[in-house]
């Protein structure tokens, strides 16, 4: 063995308080390869890479770069040994130009203009070498995410990075943009760069990596040659047991339409159109799943239906039209009174108040309803607490203590608190966004069962998820969103991932068929 690994980590451990994010991780990445690190959310992938980039310091363990043992106390040190990182959330100064962002931290002297001139020349060279064209004088906030990511890559290359770490790079990209990114990565590999790709998407690992490591609950469970493994094998390693790809459910028995959406249009605060002529209908006893890459209008659709975004168009619930025009940030309670319940996409940001106790959260959004009032003025806190305890038992929330603050529950239990609140209201229509994001596998099954059970009670459900598997296994009907439009509707039995993928990428219906 004469070739030394570009990166070698030995016995890396890192704890955040009582949580062990990384346990005794060992990994070797050979130069000029693309190495994938795959694992579920919270498996410890990002922590590991943040240690490599000097963002966190490991509690124990050793780092070798090109065979030399080094310590990486800060990002400066990481940059110094040729490591560059592209974070999931870009680290760009939005009101600076591209050039200023690239130069920031890698200036050649105390005065700015020589640095900028040097960077301008070098950027032109890099652009031609790697086919990464950018306009150095545009302002970051004026350019798209795909371009911003390209600038992050250029930032690393400008700093002479030989090892490039990309953390969930395709989360915000359309499939087309993702393909373009992968072409860039392959090109970089040809030029001898080493690339570490962190993702939770099996397809990306299979498509582009040479070797792959699997992480689970802070531990490295396997490192394999990509061409010697299969998606099923990797999935099993990720979750630790055979995954149930199918949810047990009987065929739907749809009845009358509950939700009817006609010509729904929405513009955000900046005047960008987020929903374009959306037409949808969900019937009682049916789950309509909406597939799509994140950021194509799904969140906005939920916000409009949930009553906290203005929109134009017609939305009927059980035949009666709901008012979309007058609400400035707050018809949520009126919507709930109309029988719409809503499990939001981000439970920590929206669905729960993390500093409120479980019982306070269990009436969140319904706190003004008669059943929760002791009299005209005051809430009936004792009754709410009793009621919450029952809900927590029925939904298997652990620990079932209504006086615990929400932040002290695990992700899955937090989601169950939200679900219990919304489902036990017995709504006519349930809006669900990303029901199992960041939820452990045991809770996923439970949550899926609850959603199916609600459907079987004859309720309408609108499900939004970026996980195609979840959409395919839960939905009775699938609609695909792209760029604020509904690209088409399919029955899960009559479609496949490939067709849905094309629709998600905005390829028109006739081409797909």
């Amino acid at each position, binding site marked *: 063995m004469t070739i030394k690994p570009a990166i070698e980590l030995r016995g890396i451990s890192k704890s955040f308080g009582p949580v062990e994010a990384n346990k005794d991780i060992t990994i070797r990445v050979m130069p000029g390869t693309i190495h994938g690190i795959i694992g579920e959310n919270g498996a410890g992938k990002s922590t590991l890479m943040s240690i490599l*980039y000097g963002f966190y310091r490991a509690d124990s363990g050793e780092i070798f770069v090109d065979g030399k043992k080094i310590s990486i106390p800060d990002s400066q040190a990481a940059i110094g040994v040729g490591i560059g990182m592209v974070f*999931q959330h870009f*680290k760009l100064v939005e*009101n600076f130009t591209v050039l200023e962002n690239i130069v920031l931290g890698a200036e050649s002297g*105390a005065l700015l203009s020589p640095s900028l001139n040097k960077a301008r020349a070098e950027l032109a060279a890099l652009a031609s070498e790697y086919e990464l064209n950018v306009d150095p004088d545009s302002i970051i906030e004026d350019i798209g995410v795909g371009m911003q990511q390209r600038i992050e890559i250029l930032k690393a290359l400008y700093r002479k990075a030989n090892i490039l770490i990309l953390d969930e790079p395709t989360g915000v990209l359309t499939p087309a943009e993702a393909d373009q990114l992968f072409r860039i990565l392959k090109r970089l590999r040809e030029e001898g760069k080493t690339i570490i790709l962190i993702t939770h998407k099996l397809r990306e690992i299979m498509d582009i990596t040479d070797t792959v490591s699997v992480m689970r609950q802070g531990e490295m469970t396997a490192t394999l040659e990509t061409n010697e493994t299969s998606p099923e094998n990797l999935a099993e390693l990720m979750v630790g047991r055979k995954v149930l790809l199918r949810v047990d459910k009987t065929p739907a028995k749809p009845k009358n339409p509950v939700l009817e959406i006609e010509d729904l249009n929405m513009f955000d605060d900046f005047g960008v159109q987020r929903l374009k002529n959306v037409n949808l209908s969900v019937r009682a006893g049916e789950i309509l799943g909406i597939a799509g890459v994140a950021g194509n209008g799904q969140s906005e659709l939920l916000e409009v239906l949930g009553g906290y975004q203005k929109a134009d168009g017609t939305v009927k619930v059980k035949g009666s039209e709901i008012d979309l025009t007058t609400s400035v940030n707050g018809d949520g309670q009126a919507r709930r009174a109309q029988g719409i319940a809503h499990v939001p996409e981000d439970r920590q940001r929206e669905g729960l108040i993390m500093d409120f106790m479980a019982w306070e959260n269990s009436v969140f959004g319904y706190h003004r309803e008669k059943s929760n009032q002791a009299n005209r003025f005051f809430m009936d806190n004792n009754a709410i607490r009793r009621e919450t305890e029952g809900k927590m038992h029925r939904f298997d929330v652990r620990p079932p203590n209504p006086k615990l603050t929400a932040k002290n529950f695990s992700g899955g239990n937090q989601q169950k608190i939200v679900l219990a609140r919304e489902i036990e209201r017995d709504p006519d229509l349930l809006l669900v966004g990303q029901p199992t994001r960041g939820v452990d596998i045991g809770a996923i099954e439970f949550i899926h069962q609850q959603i199916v059970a609600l459907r079987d009670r004859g309720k309408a459900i609108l499900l939004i998820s970026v996980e195609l598997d979840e959409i395919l296994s839960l939905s009775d009907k699938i609609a695909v969103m792209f760029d604020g439009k509904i690209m088409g509707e399919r029955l899960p039995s009559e479609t496949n991932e490939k067709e849905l993928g094309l629709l998600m990428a905005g390829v028109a219906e006739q081409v797909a068929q």
Partner: protein
Amino acid sequence: MIDFLTLLQVLDSSLRLATPLLLVCLAGLFSERAGIFDIGLEGKLLAAAFVSAAFAAITGSVWMGLLAGIFASILLSLLHGLASITLRGDQIISGVAINFLAAGLTVVAAQDLFGQGGRTPPLKSGGRFEPLSFPWASSSKEMSEAGPLMQLYSELLSGHSLLVYVALLTVPLSWFVLYKTRFGLRLRAVGENPAAVDTAGISVVGLRYAAVVIGGILCGIAGAYIATSLQANFTKDMSAGRGFIALAALIFAKWRPWYALAACLLFGFFFAVDNRFQNILLPAWSLSCILGVISIALLSYVWRKDYLDKVVLGGLALGVAVIAFMVVNSVWTTGITSQVKIPVVFIQSLPYVLTVVVLAGFVGRAIPPKAGGQPYVKER
């Protein structure tokens, strides 16, 4: 109409009064551009004023006073840094605490050192910054006979304390540092997106401390100026809200150095006018016209707005209209061309009112640095 010399005298006084505002405003500019809100400018100004006056009084040297004042101000800056950068505390609360600390400690210390009811003794020459007389400048006696250019030269340009010129030079210097140097680029970046700076391998903490220390130095100079140039001793609460006016000027200036100069000169002018003229008279018709236009502008703005806008801004318009009516009413017998007295407090309040108008975004929206006020916590 007032004559040219009187105008020059008012402008001269504007410049004197604008100087501490300008220094403190630029102090706030560095701090806030780096993402650290600084409500404690007032406290630093006051502390520096006391310490410089005390040291100048004891040592007899104004330079010792200046250095000591700067030192005291930097100490408070570091306290603010400790609270808001290192310990990630609330920057507003820290600033409030620093203001009280300075207000209390200066009087306690002054009383203990000098026993004159919280004042320092008057500074003798040597303990003060004397006015610098430019060559060939006319003395104040010959001023009225000199030609207009000579008056301009002698009255407005010459005859200020050294620190006035220092403050004026700080403006281009700040501009240069912020926009033309590596440090400035990083400073502006850390106020917009500290994570970008951190991942680029630069210390967020170091940059922010540097920014608050620069702020401390500038506040220190400003404090020394008010105690050893503008006045010749320290008196209790002598900063008199200048720190807050500077904050207002900073917003008015949209966090830019040259705009800051303009804003401070404007605010200084208000104070000079306020000092110089006891009664400001305006023809009743022009005043009621101005008020009427404001009222109608507000009403037409809210015409298609929602309920709350109508209540608040409509109420405001009504209030302005009532005042306009009262103005007209007060001159009913003497005729609309007679003059009415503008209360001096109105001129005093003008900087704050203007700042609120700018903050409200009705005229030229002020967008603060994006990361301002939030402590930086690393996250993935």
